[in-house]
C-alpha cells in the first residue's frame, strides 16, 4: 500500500443549479472549504490532482486550464485524470498514490462538474463508439435500464419486487438528503410518488434517476506524519481498488459485473475486510439509478447475488439498519458527475471522523466509498477508517 496516507480535510459546494457562479468560482468554493476544514493554506499544498467528465459537458476544452487558478495551482504541479463517472474515485486514488509514494507530503484533489451549462445526456452519448453502439444509445438511462432488466431476469427477481425495493431506495435516499445541506434535491417523496412518477425508460421512472447537478468537491491527502501533526482526527486510507472491463456494452456480464466485484474485493484485501456487511459501518455507493444500487450491494458482497431486493425490503441499508448506505442522500440526490465519486469519499471520511453532522451514522469507524464510470465499464472503491 505504500506509506500511510490520511485525509485531513474535505470541502463541498452547495450542489444544484448554480447559475449564480461561474465555473472557476464554483471550484474555488470547494477548495476554500477544504483548506479551512484542514486548517492549512495553499502554501502547504505540494501538488494538485483534478478530474471532470468529458470537456464537452461545459463546452470548454480541458477544463483544468479553465479553472487552474481556482484550485490554487499557480506555481504547483497539476495532474488531470478522468474516467467518466468514476473520475472522483480515480482522482482520490491518484492523490493517495502521490502521497503514498513519498513524492509529496500534502496533495489537494478536486472534482467538479457544472452540468447545467451543457447537455449531459448528449455528452454521455459521445462516450459510445461511433460505429456500432452510439446509434442505439439513449443516454445513461438506456444503459442502466438494460443492465437492471438483465439482472432481474438473471436472478428471477419478480418485477413487482424489484419495483418495490427500488422505490424504497428512492424514498430512503430522499429522506437522507434532507439531512445533507450540500444535497441538490431536498424533498421527501413517498412510495406512491416514486411508483407513479413519469416513466423515463421502463421500468425506470423519474424518481429512480439522479438529477444533473453543478457542484465541486475537494479532499486533502497527507502523509501519516503530517496528518498527525495537523489534524486532530484524520480519516485513514485503508484500501483501494479499481477495475475496468471491455468497452463494448454486451461483451461482459453486467448482471455479475466483474469490475465492481473485483474493485471491492481488492479494497477489502488491503483493508483486511472479510465480511463487509458486518465489518463496514457505512457505505457511500455511486447510485445514479435506484435499481443499480442493488446490483452494487451484491457486487460488494453485502448480500448474496439476486437477494438485494430482500435485504432492501427488510431495511438492512437504511440509516438505522445493519449497514447504512448513502446517508448523504447519495448520487440519487446530487450528481455533479466529475465530483460525485470524490463526494462519496469525502462523505465516508466525514463519517469515520464523526464530522457528518445530521447525517452522521453513530460511531462509524470503517466506511466504503465507490464510483462507476463509462458505459458500465469502470469501478473504483476506497475504504477509509478512523484508525490506521
Amino acid at each position, binding site marked *: 500500500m505504500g506509506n500511510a496516507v490520511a485525509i485531513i480535510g474535505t470541502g463541498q459546494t452547495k450542489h444544484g443549479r448554480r447559475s449564480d457562479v461561474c465555473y472557476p468560482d464554483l471550484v474555488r468554493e470547494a477548495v476554500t472549504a477544504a483548506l479551512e476544514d484542514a486548517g492549512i493554506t495553499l502554501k502547504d499544498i505540494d501538488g494538485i490532482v483534478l478530474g471532470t467528465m468529458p470537456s*464537452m459537458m461545459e463546452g470548454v476544452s480541458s477544463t483544468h486550464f479553465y479553472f487552474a487558478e481556482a484550485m490554487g495551482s499557480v506555481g504547483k504541479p497539476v495532474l488531470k485524470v478522468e474516467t467518466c463517472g468514476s473520475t472522483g474515485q480515480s482522482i482520490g486514488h491518484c492523490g493517495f498514490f502521490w502521497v503514498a509514494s513519498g513524492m509529496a507530503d500534502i496533495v489537494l484533489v478536486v472534482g467538479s462538474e457544472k452540468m447545467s451549462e451543457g447537455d449531459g445526456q448528449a455528452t454521455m452519448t459521445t462516450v459510445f463508439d461511433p460505429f456500432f453502439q452510439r*446509434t442505439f444509445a*439513449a443516454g445513461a438511462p438506456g444503459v442502466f435500464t*438494460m443492465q437492471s*432488466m438483465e439482472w432481474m431476469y438473471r436472478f428471477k427477481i419478480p418485477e413487482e419486487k424489484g419495483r418495490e425495493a427500488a422505490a424504497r431506495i428512492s424514498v430512503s435516499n430522499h429522506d437522507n438528503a434532507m439531512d445533507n445541506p450540500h444535497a441538490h434535491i431536498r424533498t421527501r417523496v413517498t412510495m406512491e410518488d416514486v411508483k407513479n412518477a413519469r416513466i423515463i425508460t421502463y421500468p425506470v421512472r423519474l424518481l429512480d434517476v439522479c438529477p444533473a447537478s453543478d457542484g465541486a468537491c475537494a479532499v486533502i491527502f497527507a502523509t501519516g506524519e503530517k496528518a498527525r501533526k495537523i489534524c486532530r482526527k484524520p480519516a485513514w486510507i485503508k484500501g483501494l481498488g479499481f477495475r475496468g472491463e471491455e468497452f463494448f456494452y454486451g*461483451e461482459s456480464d453486467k448482471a455479475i459485473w466483474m469490475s465492481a466485484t473485483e474493485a471491492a474485493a481488492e479494497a477489502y484485501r488491503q483493508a483486511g475486510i472479510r465480511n463487509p456487511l458486518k465489518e463496514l459501518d457505512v457505505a457511500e455507493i455511486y447510485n445514479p439509478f435506484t435499481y443499480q444500487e442493488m446490483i452494487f450491494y451484491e457486487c460488494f458482497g453485502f448480500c448474496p447475488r439476486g437477494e438485494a431486493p430482500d435485504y432492501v425490503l427488510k431495511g438492512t441499508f437504511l440509516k438505522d439498519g445493519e449497514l447504512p448506505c448513502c446517508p448523504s442522500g447519495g448520487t440519487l440526490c446530487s450528481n455533479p458527475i466529475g465530483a460525485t465519486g470524490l463526494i462519496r469519499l469525502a462523505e465516508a471520511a466525514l463519517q469515520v471522523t464523526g464530522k457528518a453532522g445530521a447525517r452522521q451514522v453513530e460511531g462509524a469507524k470503517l466506511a466504503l466509498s465507490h464510483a462507476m464510470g463509462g458505459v458500465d465499464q469502470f469501478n473504483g472503491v476506497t475504504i477509509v477508517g478512523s484508525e490506521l
Partner: protein
Amino acid sequence: MAKEEHRIVKGQVMVPYEVALGKTWSMFYDFLKEEKIMGKKCPQCSRVLVPPRSFCPRCFEDMDEWVEVSQEGIVETWVYVNMPFFAQELKIPFISAQIRLDGSDTGFIHQVAGIDLTEFEKVREIVKLGGRVKAVWSREKKGNILDIAYFEPVK
C-alpha cells in the same frame, strides 16, 4: 426574494470528424453488404466476438479467424426508449436490445422493430427477455450498422 442577478452566455460548438474504421471493422461492414454477420474467433480462449475485434480484449492475442454467426439470437436485455435525446438517429419510440446471436459469445447491441411500437404495454407482450429475434436487412447498404435494419421477434 430578489431576482437573481446573473447572466448566461449561449453558445454551441460543432466539430466535424472523419473517423477511421480500420481493417477489421471495415471488413465487418463489407460482410454486411453480403448480408452476412461475421465475428472473430480468439485463437486462445475460442470466444467469438461480434462486433469483431482485431485482438481479444481478454487474451490480448490477434484475432485473425472470421466466423459467420447466426442471424438469429436471444434477447438478453432490452429497453423501450420513448424519450428524445440530443442528436438521436432513431425516431422514438424505439427498442435498444442486447442480442446474443447463435454462435457468438457476446451480446450484440441493435434495435428490435418490425412490430407496432406505439404502445409499451402491447410491445412487452411481444418482446421478451430470453425471446428470439432475427435480423431484417436494409435493401440499400450504406456501410453502417443500420445495414441490418433491425431485429424482429421470431413467431
